[in-house]
C-alpha cells in the first residue's frame, strides 16, 4: 500500500460480565443453555416490569475502570437507547449515554519496535446485552433466543490512538488479558462474550484532520480483527488513490470471502432517542465503595510483569511470556509456592520445557499434564544435585507423557552418581586410556576438559553429577 496515508484506528469492545444473574433482574446469566430457558418477566420485557441494577455488575465494571486508569463517576446514569429489533424485548436497550461510569483512562501496549505506547480509554459504560435472532432461510422463519438478553455488558471505547492493525490487535490483547486477570469476563471472542467493533480512517501524513471513518462489525477473532483492518486499510487507500470519497458507513466483516461489506450508510443511521431511564435512580458510588473495590483488585498483568523483573531478575521477555495469560502466571506462581523453587530456574522450565511441550500438542496451560507441584518436585531434585539437567528432562518427559510421579521416576533411574570415589575410578581409567588427549590438555588445550567429562557421562549413562565430575576432572588432569 501507498505509504502516503496514516491509518487511524479506534476500537469499541463489548465484554460480557461473568455475573450470576442478569444486569437488571435475578434471572440467571449463563451461556450454552437451551433457547429461552434463561428468561423471566423482566428479561422478556413483559408489561409492568421494572429493572433493578445488579450490584455485582457495577463492581465488575468499576474494577475494569480502575484497572484501565479511568476516573470513576460518583454519579452516573442509565439511559434508554431505542431501536426496534425482535431480539430487543423492550424496544430499547438500557445503556449509559452522557454520564458513563468510567472515563479518561489508558493502557500501555508493547510495539514490535520494543517501545511502549499509551492508548487512551475514552469511556467504559454499562449496558444490557440483547437476545439472538436466528434466521432460518429454508423455513423462511426467524427465531429469537432471549437467554442472552439482559446479560451485563461493558462497552470499552478507545481513543482514535492506534496507527496500524498490529497496534489494534496488541491493544485488544492487553484489554483481553486485563479482563481475564480480573476474572470478570470469559474473554471468548468466538462465543461472543468479548466482541470488537473497529473504527478506521486514513489521512495523509502530516494532515491534522481525521479522514472519514468506517465502522467494521462482526469480527469474532483476533485474527479477523487484523485481517479486516488490513483489508479496510487497503480498500480505503485504493479509494483515496483513485480520487474517490470515503463514505461514512458501517461495514460487516465477511470471514468467508475475507472482505468487509457495506451494511448501512450514515443516512440510514438510527436516531436512538437517548434519554435518562426514569425507572432507574442515578448510580451513586461513595468513596468508601470505590476504595473497597480498589483494595480487592488482583495483581494486574503489568504490575506482575514488573515485579517478576524486579524481584526475580527474570528477563523482560520471560516476564512478558509468563504474564501473558492469568492461567500461565497462576501456574508459575504455584510452582514457586511449592518446594521453594528458584524463580529463574522455574521461569526457564515453564517457558521452554513446559510451554514447548504444550505448544507441540496444541494444548493451553489449563490442560497441562504436569501439575505445578510436580514440576516443582523435578526442579527440587535438579537443584539439590540429586539428578542432572539431562535426567531432569527425562523425568519431565515421563511425567508429561505418562503421568508418572516425579519422585518414583527419580528413584528408579537410580539417581545421580555423586560418589567421588566411584567417579574418580572412572576418570582415572579414562585418563589412562587417552594419553594423547591428556598430553594436549596439559600443554594448554584446556577446552579438552569437556571431552573427559563427556566420557564420564557416557560411562554413567548421564547420571554423573556434572559439577562434581568437572571439579574432579580438573583436579585429576592437573596433578
Amino acid at each position, binding site marked *: 500500500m501507498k505509504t502516503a496515508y496514516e491509518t487511524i484506528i479506534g476500537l469499541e469492545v463489548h465484554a460480557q460480565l461473568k455475573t450470576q444473574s442478569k444486569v437488571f433482574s435475578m434471572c440467571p446469566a449463563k451461556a450454552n443453555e437451551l433457547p429461552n430457558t434463561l428468561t423471566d*418477566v423482566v428479561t*422478556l*420485557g*413483559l*408489561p*409492568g*416490569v*421494572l*429493572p*433493578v*441494577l445488579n450490584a455485582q455488575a457495577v463492581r465488575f465494571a468499576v474494577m475494569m475502570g480502575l484497572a484501565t486508569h479511568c476516573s470513576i463517576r460518583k454519579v452516573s446514569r442509565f439511559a*434508554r437507547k*431505542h431501536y*426496534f429489533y*425482535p431480539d430487543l*424485548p*423492550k*424496544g*430499547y436497550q438500557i445503556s449509559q449515554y452522557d454520564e458513563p461510569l468510567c472515563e479518561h483512562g489508558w493502557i500501555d501496549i508493547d510495539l514490535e519496535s520494543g517501545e511502549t505506547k499509551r492508548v487512551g480509554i475514552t469511556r467504559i459504560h454499562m449496558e444490557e446485552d440483547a437476545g439472538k435472532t436466528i434466521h432460518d432461510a429454508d423455513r423462511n422463519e*426467524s427465531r*429469537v433466543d432471549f437467554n442472552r438478553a439482559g446479560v451485563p455488558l461493558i462497552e470499552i471505547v478507545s481513543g482514535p490512538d492506534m496507527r496500524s492493525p498490529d497496534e489494534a490487535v496488541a491493544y485488544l490483547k492487553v484489554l483481553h488479558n486485563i479482563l481475564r486477570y480480573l476474572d470478570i469476563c470469559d474473554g471468548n471472542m468466538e462465543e461472543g462474550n468479548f466482541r470488537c467493533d473497529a473504527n478506521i480512517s486514513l489521512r495523509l501524513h502530516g494532515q491534522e484532520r481525521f479522514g472519514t471513518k468506517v465502522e467494521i462489525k462482526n469480527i469474532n477473532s483476533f485474527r479477523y480483527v487484523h485481517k479486516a483492518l488490513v483489508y479496510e486499510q487497503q480498500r480505503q487507500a485504493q479509494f483515496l488513490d483513485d480520487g474517490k470519497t470515503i463514505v461514512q458507513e458501517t461495514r460487516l466483516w465477511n470471514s468467508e470471502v475475507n472482505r468487509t461489506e457495506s451494511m448501512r450508510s450514515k443516512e440510514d443511521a438510527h*436516531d436512538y*432517542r*437517548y*434519554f435518562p431511564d*426514569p*425507572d*432507574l*435512580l442515578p448510580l451513586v458510588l461513595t468513596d468508601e465503595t470505590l476504595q473497597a473495590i480498589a483494595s480487592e483488585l488482583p495483581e494486574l498483568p503489568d504490575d506482575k510483569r514488573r515485579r517478576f523483573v524486579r524481584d526475580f531478575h527474570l528477563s523482560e521477555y520471560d516476564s512478558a511470556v509468563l504474564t501473558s495469560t492469568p492461567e500461565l502466571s497462576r501456574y508459575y506462581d504455584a510452582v514457586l509456592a511449592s518446594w521453594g523453587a528458584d524463580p529463574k530456574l522455574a521461569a526457564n522450565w515453564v517457558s521452554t520445557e513446559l510451554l514447548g511441550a504444550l505448544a507441540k500438542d496444541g494444548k493451553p496451560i489449563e490442560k497441562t499434564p504436569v501439575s505445578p507441584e510436580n514440576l516443582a518436585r523435578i526442579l527440587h531434585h535438579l537443584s539439590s544435585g540429586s539428578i542432572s539437567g539431562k535426567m531432569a528432562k527425562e523425568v519431565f518427559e515421563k511425567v508429561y507423557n505418562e503421568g508418572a510421579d516425579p519422585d518414583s521416576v527419580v528413584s528408579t533411574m537410580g539417581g545421580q552418581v555423586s560418589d567421588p570415589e566411584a567417579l574418580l575410578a572412572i576418570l582415572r581409567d579414562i585418563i589412562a586410556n587417552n594419553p594423547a588427549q591428556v598430553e594436549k590438555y596439559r600443554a594448554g588445550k584446556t577446552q579438552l576438559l569437556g571431552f573427559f567429562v563427556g566420557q564420564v557421562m557416557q560411562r554413567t549413562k548421564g547420571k554423573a553429577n556434572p559439577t562434581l565430575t568437572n571439579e574432579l576432572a580438573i583436579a585429576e588432569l592437573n596433578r
Partner: protein
Amino acid sequence: MSDDLLFESALSLRERVVSKQISASELTGLFLDRIAKTDATYRAFLLVDRDSALAQARAIDGAIVRGDDVGPLAGVPVAIKDQIVTRGLRTTCASRMLEGFVPPYDATVVDRLRRAGAIIIGKTNQDEFAMGSSTENSAYGPTRNPWDPNRVPGGSSGGSAVAVALRQVPLALGTDTGGSIRQPASLCGVVGLKPTYGRVSRFGAVAFASSLDQIGPFANTVPDTAAIMNVIAGHDPNDSTCVPAAVPDYLSGLDGGIAGIKVGVPREYFVPGMTAGVESAIQAGIDRLRAAGAELVEISLPHTDYCVATYYIIATAEASSNLARYDGVRYGYRAKEPKDLYDMYSRSRDEGFGSEVKRRIMLGTYVLSSGYYDAYYRKAQQVRTLIRQDFDAAFQKVDVIACPVSPVTAFKLGEMVEDPLQMYLMDILTISCNLAGLPGISVPCGFSDNLPVGLQLLAKPLGETVLLRTARAHEMAYPDSARRAG
C-alpha cells in the same frame, strides 16, 4: 339487610367477615350480584372473574374457621384497573394491542392485597394505556358516569371510580399519571388518592410515564382509603424508584382533627373556565376546613401556567419509550400476514393502538428526536424543577394545599372527543402534583347540577398522614357523604 351491606365501609365489612356475621363467600356473592345488576348500563368492568373471586372468598372463610390470621382486608372485594397486571387474569390496558394477554405474574400491589385477604374480583375499564381523561379511549367501549349515564366518569381510571361509586366493590385500585385517579374520583363522587411518587411500588403497573405514574386507591371513605394504603404502601425490591421509608399506620390518628393545620389556597388554581357551581362547591369545602380549625393561607404557585406543556412533553416522551415493547413479537397483537419485519412492526402498532395512544407516541418520539431533545425534553425537565420548587416554597408555609380537581363536572360522552387539546387542558389542576411527586387526594365536597365535585388536597412528599387526616376532617363535616349514585 343485605343491600345495606353494599353501602358499608370496607373496614366494617371486614369486621363482619372476621367476626363471622357474614362469610366472605356470601359477601363476595352480594357484590358479584350488584355488578351483574348494574354493569350492563355503566360498564365499569372489562372482566369479572366470578369463579376465582368465590374461590378466594372460600379460602378466606376456611382460614377464618381454622383461626388463621386473615389479614386487614379479609373478605373485602377489590377491583383492579386493567393497567395493573394480575396473574392469570386477562390484562389489556383497554387496548386491542393486549387483547387476550394473560400475565404470568401479579403486580406487587395485587400480591399485597391477596396477602391481606382481599378478594380480587375483576379488572376495570380505563382509557387505553391510561391516556385520557374520560374513559372514552377504551378499545372496549366507554364507561358511564354513575350519576348520569349520558356523561363520562372521567379518566383514565374511570372504571375503578365508577365501581366504587356504584358500590360494585368497596375498594378499587387505579393509576394516576396526571390526575387519572383524582379526576374520576371527583367526577364520580368518591375518594381517590394518588400517593407520593415512590410510596407504592409500580412493579406490575403497566408503564405509561414512568416518572409520573403511581398506583393508588379509590374508596367511599377516608378510613377505607387509609386501610388499603396500609396494605399497598411500602418498599419493594422490584422497584428501584420505590422509597425505603417506613410506612406509618395511616389509620392511627386519622380522626385527630386539623386544629392549627395551615391550609394553603393557591390563587392560580381558580382558573378561567371553571364553572360557578364547581367554584362554590370548592369554596364550601375550604370553609369546612376552616370551620374544623385549619388556618387558611393564600399562596402562589407561579409556574402553574407551564404545567400542561411540561407534562405533555415528559409524559409523551416516556410513553413513546415505554410503549416501544408492543411490537407484536413476544405477546399481544400481531398484524396478519406481514410482508416483512418492518411491515409487521408498523401494521401491528397501527392496528393494535388506538388513535390517542398513537398521537402521544408520535408526540413523544418527536420531542426525544435528535436535534429537538434540548428544546423540548431537557427544557421540560428544567421547568419541572421550577414547578417542584414552587411547591417546596409553598410547603414552607403550609401543611396542606386545597384546590379544585377539575374545573368542570362530568361532561357528556363524545363532547370532547374531537378536541384533544381541550381534553388535555382538563388536566391543568391535577398534573402539577405528578410533576412534583406529591401525594394528592380528591374528596367529595359538593354537587353542581346534581353532579359531584371533588376537593383536591395536596401535601409534601410522604405527607400522606396529614393529607388523610385533613381529608377525614372534611369528610366528617360534609353533610352529603351518604348521597348514593346509581
